[in-house]
């Protein structure tokens, strides 16, 4: 994993000192809230429904045990003993006191973490494949490139006041586990004639106007990746709309210009930018990449798994994925127990996951955009012992990618932007489908819930999506079908009139019943939907 050099540490420490003084001045009345608000947002500190909320960046979702323990420590000391893992691979605390914020940021800085650029109209935390460096299907580890982008985008003077926030994802596998094409820029590392390059998809996003990013350039030499990204941002920064917040994202600019014209302008800018020497010398990239060297894994470790415990066998089938090194596996820890709150973990659970990562996963953890945790490098021989410890802590729910593995934003229970609650709906759906046999019969079914049009819960990308709206002061839920955030990316379609909280759960049951009645051999829910269309589902829902 990447370790801060003296420049990284100085930057973060300087920001802690600066923000500490800003907080002091705010509490002393030397600056107003109007003056202070943009400053606190630059440090990830929001004011939400019940208190201040602090969003902590987890770069490309990777962290080590020491950092994970610090997250638990902060939850225990300054918050209410839990944290919420988000759909952008970050962590949020919901009950932060302003007067504690400087101490929290100092604690984070002591383990090479921060909350910088987790808000505001800047380049946000770079996201990536949670299985990076471990996945059997990846071309290369995308994280050195994500780290390079992190360094380039941190405090970038030209891109600190963009028309709107900007999100970048980097992957290096055909299977898209990061919703890459639903980002402002999605970068896929690809191979051509034995050489790796970057394919740039630009102008994707969810929110009010969901769009799938078109391919803008199919192959950028990796040594020019930053220059090309710079050119993409420059064209956006120059022409993106600042007069209308709803039309300010890059997806709108590209939609209005057309992908071809946008690409032409980027190409022009790229020709200029390349002369500026933005891309680092190879030695600097090699220095970064060396820190992502794979752990020393014994490829002769036993490959067989003793499946004699049936509960363990189910968990292995559902939550354990293939590792690139024989004898090893990727373990996915579900934070979606039936009746639980998607993405929430107590400080004790966070501490335990840190301990288990240290013992079984070469000190590494990942946060996923689906609000789960990954231990990327586990010996298969250790799986049973690991599972037993997870199970004791309520962390062995075997539901990865099943209907109860629900992405849900905090919704109206916590968020000041929300129009409806997300979490209770997730809990009711998970309870309705609590029977694991039933869930597994349904197979892969990605259900995603947002409490408002901003789509933090990725409802557009759900095989089944739910959008909470305010209908004359009452919560109402629209149902969408057919979305996907994966390599078969698509946007969901609204079924029709919305439902109340119980009604939407009933509607989902009718939808899944229709799927079971109509599917052919090997079809996932979304495959059946794409084959037969909306009509049979609408008929089942509305009669």
């Amino acid at each position, binding site marked *: 994993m990447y370790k801060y050099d003296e420049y990284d540490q100085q930057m973060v420490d300087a920001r802690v000192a600066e923000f500490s003084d800003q907080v002091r001045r705010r509490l002393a009345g030397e600056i107003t809230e109007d003056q202070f608000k943009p400053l606190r947002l630059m440090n990830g500190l929001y004011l939400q*429904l019940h208190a201040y909320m602090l969003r902590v960046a987890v770069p490309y979702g990777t962290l080590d045990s020491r950092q994970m323990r610090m997250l638990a420590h902060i939850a225990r000391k300054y918050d209410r003993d839990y944290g919420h893992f988000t759909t952008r691979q970050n962590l949020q605390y919901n009950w932060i006191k302003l007067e504690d914020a400087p101490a929290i940021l100092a604690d984070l800085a002591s383990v090479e973490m921060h909350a910088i650029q987790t808000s505001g109209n800047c380049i946000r935390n770079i996201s990536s494949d949670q299985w990076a460096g471990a996945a059997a299907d990846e071309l290369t580890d995308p994280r050195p490139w994500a780290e390079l982008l992190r360094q380039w985008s941190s405090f970038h003077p030209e891109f600190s006041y963009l028309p709107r926030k900007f999100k970048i994802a980097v992957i290096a596998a055909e299977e898209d586990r990061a919703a890459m094409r639903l980002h402002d820029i999605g970068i896929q590392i690809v191979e051509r004639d034995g050489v790796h390059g970057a394919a740039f998809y630009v102008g994707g996003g969810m929110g009010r106007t969901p769009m799938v990013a078109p391919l803008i350039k199919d192959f950028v030499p990796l040594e020019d990746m930053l220059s090309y990204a710079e050119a993409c941002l420059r064209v956006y920064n120059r022409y993106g709309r600042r007069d209308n917040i709803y039309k300010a994202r890059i997806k709108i600019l590209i939609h209005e210009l057309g992908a071809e014209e946008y690409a032409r302008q980027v190409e022009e800018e790229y020709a200029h930018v390349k002369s500026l020497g933005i891309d680092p010398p190879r030695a600097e990239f090699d220095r970064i990449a060396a820190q992502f060297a794979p752990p020393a894994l014994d490829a002769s470790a036993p490959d067989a798994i003793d499946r004699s415990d049936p509960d363990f066998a189910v968990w292995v089938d559902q939550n354990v994925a293939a590792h690139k090194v024989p004898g090893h596996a990727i373990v996915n820890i579900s934070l979606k127990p039936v009746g639980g709150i998607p993405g929430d973990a107590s400080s004790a659970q966070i501490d335990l996951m840190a301990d288990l990562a240290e013992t079984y996963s070469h000190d590494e953890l990942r946060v996923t955009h689906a609000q789960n945790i990954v231990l990327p490098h586990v010996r298969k021989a250790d799986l049973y012992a690991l599972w037993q410890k997870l199970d004791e802590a309520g962390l062995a729910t075997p539901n990865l990618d099943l209907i109860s593995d629900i992405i849900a934003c905090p919704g109206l229970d916590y968020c000041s932007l929300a129009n409806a609650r997300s979490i209770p709906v997730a809990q009711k759906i998970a309870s309705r489908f609590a029977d694991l046999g039933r869930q597994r019969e349904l197979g892969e079914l990605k259900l995603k819930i947002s409490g408002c049009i901003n789509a933090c819960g990725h409802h557009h990308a759900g095989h089944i999506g739910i959008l909470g709206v305010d209908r004359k002061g009452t919560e109402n839920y629209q149902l969408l079908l057919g979305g996907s955030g994966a390599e078969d990316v698509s946007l969901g379609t609204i079924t029709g009139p919305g439902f109340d909280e119980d009604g939407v759960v009933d509607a989902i049951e009718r939808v899944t019943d229709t799927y079971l009645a109509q599917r052919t051999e090997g079809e996932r829910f979304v495959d059946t939907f794409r084959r037969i269309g909306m009509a049979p589902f609408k008929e089942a829902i509305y009669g």
Partner: protein
Amino acid sequence: MKLLTGNDLKTGFVTWWTGADWSLHIEDAADVGEAGDAIAAAEEGARRVNAPYIIAGEQTADGPRPAHIKDRIRALGPTVRPDLTLKPADPAAGDWVI
């Protein structure tokens, strides 16, 4: 009735104007009538509250209640974590929120 609410500057906790001070408890909230904007400006200036705003409310037998669901949730706490609300020991405390 009109209620004045905001968040405590230091803690961020939800507060309600009682007519003379701020309280964490919606039951203490007072009808601010047409004086809400002036009180909000003065209290914000005194750094006792952050982002104050006026909402519609109604008087019930149990005290004032916000009209909109968002402020009813603010008044008590997250509906999904009764242990974190202002009345964690009272399972019926949130019956009026939704």
